[in-house]
């Protein structure tokens, strides 16, 4: 029992991202309303972004903002600042997520205008008629 608790505490960032990802995945697949599926997709993408950012953390690390001349002189200890590369990569991923959400919302508006509802089963009913 202690070993399990130890495992969970030591790698808690992995556990958090797995739980969030499964919540998002369940929403994408299990919910009937199209808007809820879209929000599930957002949660899914956010969990991966959180995971990436958490991989850059170092024990006792500080914010990765360094004075320009200090960095040029070479007086920066890489072990004392958090890795900034995942942050930059995730900026791009956030922009991608925003774009996909924007397109999806516009598509949802078209669906609403056409069928009058955003519930999947009602739409399927209308299609079969």
């Amino acid at each position, binding site marked *: 029992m202690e070993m399990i608790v130890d495992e969970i505490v030591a790698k808690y960032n992995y556990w958090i991202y797995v739980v969030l990802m499964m919540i998002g995945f369940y929403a994408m697949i299990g919910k009937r309303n199209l808007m809820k599926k879209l929000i599930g*997709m957002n949660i899914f993408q956010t969990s991966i972004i959180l995971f*990436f950012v958490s991989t850059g953390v170092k024990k006792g690390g500080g914010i990765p903002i360094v004075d320009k001349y200090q960095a040029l002189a070479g007086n920066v200890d890489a072990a004392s600042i958090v890795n900034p590369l995942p942050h930059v*990569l995730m900026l791009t991923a956030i922009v991608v997520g925003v774009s*996909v959400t924007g*397109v999806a919302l516009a598509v949802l508006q078209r669906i609403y205008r056409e069928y009058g509802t955003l519930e999947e089963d009602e739409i399927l009913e209308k299609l079969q008629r």
Partner: protein
Amino acid sequence: MNATNLHLFVLVVPLLSALAINLLGRRSRQWIAPMVLGSLAFSVFGSIIIMARVIEHGNLSYTVGNWRPPYGIELVVDPLSALMMVLISVVALLASFSSLKSVEQELPGREHFFFTLYMILIAGLFGLVLTGDAFNLYVLLEITSITTYGLIAMGRGRAALSSFNYIIMGSIGACFYLLGIGYIYILTGTLNMADIARILPTLNAPVATATAIAFALVGLWVKMAFFPLHSWLPNAYSQAPTGAGTMVAPLMTKVTVYLMVRVILSMYTPALVFTHEWIAQGVVWAAAFAIICGSVLALGQKDLRRMLTYIIVAEVGYMVGGIFLANANGLTGSILHIVNDALMTLCLFLVVAAIIYRQGSVSLVSLQGIFRRMPITMAAFTLGAFAMIGVPPTCGFFSKWYLILGGIDGGHWEFVIALVVSSLINAVLFFRIIELGYFGSLQDGDHHGPPSTERHEAPWWMLSPLVLTAVLLIVVGLSTGPLINNVIRLMIPVGF
């Protein structure tokens, strides 16, 4: 301007023309056609020059911003990338001739939006084949996907619903790929593909490496509609506007297959991916299922475009199975099939576009007797059908030949049987349509008066790329030998 930057200019010119179309296309429509055709013609010339140079001098690589390779984003042009660049630019140019006319008919007044998305999609495809950096691949994959979501949603009827379904599934695929890249970054600390290939075999982390490989491959499989992750494809490609389907259907899934080849060959070296025999076996069985199920599902369709989309699912099965056969013939057949399948799908979708332009629908019922009205279109369709079935000397025969040889070499008889059965089913599918087209009684489109039997072909804008593609099918088939010797053989890793 020196020619080291030529491959980047091939990418940048369509992108700049997309911006120009967005600005100028609002004022007047006549700017759109010259800009689209001009930039794509430049890309065709540029990619042919690059291909010649790569065959002569070897790989070109440079980093954007002139930073040293592991730190900068590297662009690599090796023979496979150069081949894909030529393929993308030629297919895009031929499809644009037809799309310009279709969009005029189907989406009046919104052409500048359509072609902005179209040109950004093409620029994204060029970027995908050029990049040598794992995260850059994710960004460009999403660029191409987002523009495709937009293009598909512009159609009529159920298009918006199909596009939404594609958005959900496509995002799952891209996120899985991103997760795979995340694991790789934690393991190796670098995102450059050549660097990862250098470092990954020296690490001793089998579980983490296997997880990374699995996530990235499954993500790419969702994007290329590998059975059973294919459910978004038939709806999305058949409900899209005709102009979008003509360009997206031949290119998107094939470029994603190329990405899988690139990831397996250059990033995760083949030694790592094929260590466990049973995984490769399993994937080949899954590919055999994909081929059979795709072909059988195509038999039940009553609409020519939906039938073609299920055939695309089967073709993806050919290519994935060919790669996971893990021998030289299989890999050659797979890469050759990327080129051939793009051309065959382009030819068939151009036929569909021409028929829709004149008739408005491609349901099998409405295709009866169409030979009398559109003989050239039907002749090109027959050539495309022969290529799909695998009749020499069209290109389809040669790639299937190599795939069958690869299956026999590896002892994967299920794959060989699936290939042969699928060729037979394709023969049934296409000969059914050829019989309807040539020998059926003419359908009367408007229900008044006897049906007209005069020739009423699509305009020459749509007919000339069709004829050119049909001729290309034979030309590429006949030049398979030089293609394999000069280009594809250089890509096969040692030991296969």
